[in-house]
């Protein structure tokens, strides 16, 4: 048997992910600051965890992670659903509209953040302010006054196509006879949506929301570019907080503890969502 053929991939993944995670666990129980190498590595047990969990900045990072993920996933689900319904109904030019709508998802996150921050949100030269000025509003400095909202707008713009993609695939797998029968029976659009389309799409919503949660929880680029976690740490999420502990404070132990806590939170959320959504996802497998 060619079973050995899985070994190289498994070994590589263990070397690059499992092994470092074990080391992260080990480091998280120690105090070690790279700025003071002579102090070396000191065992401190759970002290790093206790300090982090008591730290208002770290707590804010947890709260921000939850808010960013939740708002982005819910908003992209609703908006992506709307787009998918429109695309599904289109007769002419569907392929072109599909390609255009997909585009934001393909832009690298630092480009979209730089472009939105400078060319659209800029308080003086930004297009948004020019447009607001035309109708007698503004000036706005969204990144300055509502930094979290600014980040979310960019993230939602970027991830809406992802949800649209998945839900459109769902709509297109809806058996045509079912729709036609319902239409013949005189089902109104609202009833169609409620009793046929939404129930059919449930597994697709589940998959899309699960994947988006996993992919957006560790969001980093938009925060790095739009606010760098500021002002005063108010837009940091967990990933950014660990990045700051490591690359600015050189606190290896605290950063490792933050990494472990992030992993625990991610696993907990994913497991919960999987359990909650599994019936919906598996029903489709039939």
């Amino acid at each position: 048997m060619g079973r050995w053929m899985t070994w190289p991939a498994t070994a590589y993944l263990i070397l690059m992910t499992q092994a470092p995670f074990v080391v992260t666990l080990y480091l998280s129980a120690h105090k070690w600051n790279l700025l003071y190498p002579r102090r070396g590595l000191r065992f401190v047990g759970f002290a790093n965890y206790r300090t982090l969990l008591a730290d208002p900045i770290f707590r804010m990072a947890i709260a921000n992670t939850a808010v960013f993920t939740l708002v982005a996933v819910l908003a992209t689900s609703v908006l992506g659903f709307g787009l998918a319904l429109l695309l599904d109904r289109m007769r002419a030019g569907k392929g072109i509209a599909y390609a255009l709508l997909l585009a934001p998802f393909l832009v690298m996150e630092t480009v979209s953040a730089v472009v939105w921050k400078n060319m659209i949100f800029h308080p003086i030269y930004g297009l948004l302010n020019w447009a607001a000025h035309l109708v007698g509003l503004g000036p706005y400095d969204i990144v300055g006054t509502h930094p979290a909202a600014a980040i979310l707008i960019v993230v939602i713009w970027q991830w809406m196509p992802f949800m649209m993609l998945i839900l459109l695939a769902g709509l297109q797998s809806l058996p045509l006879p079912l729709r036609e029968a319902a239409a013949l029976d005189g089902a109104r659009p609202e009833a169609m949506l409620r009793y046929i389309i939404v129930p059919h799409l449930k597994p697709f919503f589940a998959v899309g929301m699960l994947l988006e949660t996993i992919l957006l929880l560790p969001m980093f680029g938009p925060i790095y570019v739009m606010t760098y976690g500021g002002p005063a740490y108010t837009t940091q999420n967990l990933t950014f907080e660990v990045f700051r502990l490591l690359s600015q404070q050189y606190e290896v132990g605290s950063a490792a503890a933050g990494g472990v806590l992030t992993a625990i939170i991610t696993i907990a959320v994913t497991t919960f969502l999987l359990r909650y959504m599994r019936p919906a996802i598996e029903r489709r497998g039939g």
Partner: protein
Amino acid sequence: MRQRASVTVLVSIVTFAIALLMLFPILWTFLTGLKSETDALSIPPVFWFVPSLDKYIYAFQQGEFLSFFYNTVVIVGCAIAGSFALGLPAAYVLAFFPGRRADSMLFFALSTRFMPGVAVIVPISIVYSRLHLIDTRLGLILMHITLGIPMVMWLMRRYFSEIPKEIIESVMLEGASHARIFWRIVLPLSIPGLVTTGFLVMIMAWNEFFFAVNLAGRSAATLPVFMASFLTTEGQTWAQMSAAATLAILPIFVAGLIASRGLVSGLTNGASH
């Protein structure tokens, strides 16, 4: 379902209007790259201007952009090759010898993909600096292979399982080795899948930012890091920034348009197993 013609037209118009609105920031970036710096900063914005390719040409002449672009191409290319080298044999086993062990292997691979980067970045950056892998292309390639393997296994297992089992079984009866079956039959029959998967790994590696910014500095950094550095020159060189941004995302647009179908089927079909 029958629709009145007016509704169909209305749906098309509304969809295109939204699509153009969504696309606007990208379109505007492309246009700004064709402007002079004064026009780029002008308020009210200049919609009619004499387009010039100067900024695009300058990006390639000035060396800085070019070196980041070169880094990205080399790193992404090697990452694809490495992910395939390790991921394809595994996908072969998963597709043709399914079972509980194969399932748990796949689950393990996917779970590594979904592990947050901060859970591993601390030891990796320390080990990298001890091994002089920090700020090297090799360092980023090794990390990107890690991210690519699960994607290759996940997507290629699907494409491989579409090959009729009878073909494989009959060749096996003739005594062909696994290596021979893999190279001579399975791979040639899955070329469309290989292309799609290759593009998806490319998109992911090309856009990856977290590891790039943590593990690479001036000499090995990729385009996402270069684009983020435009923050420091905020408000000064928007035309130049836009030209660089357009060039940085162009290869991904091409790859994305080719691979989008595969992305959807990979995400939705695979999810039911």
